[in-house]
């Protein structure tokens, strides 16, 4: 992976922002956010069709927007459900990509480590490009990579909480041991959260609530695009060292009357 791109399986993305498609005030706002964020990959869920529903055409809307569609397994509480949902997603959308979620319980929406590993293993074996939503445990992250996942998607904070990076130390540990991309998913709330994630050296972010539930989603999408660019550039630029005490920026030499 070059400094400039985010490689997921065979794909080379130039944007470091992945976007969810839920909770926008309207479909048009969603499409405007897709455009404003510069994203090249948008997640979708698999849900029952309803006769006459408009929902079905989400595929076409996103397809026309020119983005990659990343089906998720949201709502799955067992490895079995997740594997089956992944297969439905592949069939419906014609992609090997899957954002794998195996949720432990309704209250925390945190991943179930055992179920996640089991489902990831089956899906990798079945040829999927697996992007697992995981907690921020560096050990689990490593296991997922060892199994053959194409990226690791640790959370910043619980889904939909907008609390920002609760444990930057763990994200750093995950990143420093990973050779696949680390894309922080869940819990980001505003632009600086995204900048911080990228400054830690992580490779991308997956955003949904932070954009869709902002006062002005399209402007927030734009903010997120800039925030990711800022963080990625700052990481590559290597920040100045921190000093405990002040250090003059203007040189004293040549100061008059001294």
């Amino acid at each position, binding site marked *: 992976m070059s400094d400039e791109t985010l490689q997921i399986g065979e794909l080379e993305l130039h944007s470091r922002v992945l976007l969810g498609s839920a909770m926008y005030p309207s479909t048009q706002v969603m499409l405007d956010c897709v455009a404003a964020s510069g994203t090249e990959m948008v997640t979708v869920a698999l849900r029952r069709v309803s006769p006459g529903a408009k929902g079905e055409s989400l595929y076409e809307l996103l397809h026309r927007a020119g983005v990659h569609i990343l089906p998720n397994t949201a709502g799955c509480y067992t490895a079995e459900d997740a594997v089956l949902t992944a297969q439905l997603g592949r*069939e*419906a959308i014609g992609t090997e990509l899957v954002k794998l979620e195996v949720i432990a319980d309704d209250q925390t929406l945190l991943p179930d480590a055992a179920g996640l590993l089991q489902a990831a293993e089956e899906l990798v074996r079945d040829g999927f490009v697996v992007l697992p939503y995981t907690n921020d445990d560096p050990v689990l992250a490593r296991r997922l990579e060892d199994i053959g996942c194409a990226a690791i998607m640790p959370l910043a904070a619980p889904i939909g909480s907008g609390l920002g990076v609760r444990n930057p130390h763990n994200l750093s540990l995950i990143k420093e041991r990973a050779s696949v991309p680390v894309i922080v998913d869940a819990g980001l709330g505003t632009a600086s959260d995204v900048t911080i994630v990228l400054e830690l050296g992580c490779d991308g972010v997956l955003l949904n609530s932070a954009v869709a539930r902002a006062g002005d989603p399209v402007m927030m999408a734009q903010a997120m695009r800039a925030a990711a660019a800022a963080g990625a550039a700052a990481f590559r630029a290597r920040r100045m060292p921190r000093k405990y005490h002040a250090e003059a920026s203007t040189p004293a030499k040549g100061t008059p009357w001294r």
Partner: protein
Amino acid sequence: MRARVNGAERELSPGMSIGALVNEVAADAKAVAVALNRAMIPRKEWSAVQVQEGDDIEIVAPFHGG
């Protein structure tokens, strides 16, 4: 003949194929996938597979998700 379609019991004509059922249930069959008794049925088999009494069928499509 009764079967469970997307979580609801439903009366279907005997011998109905998955393909026919999808056409009835989904506004647009594009980007749709089907699970029959918790196994995914590839689109190319839809016309060949007939729904049986008591089958559990899920017909899904991409939806807004995060």
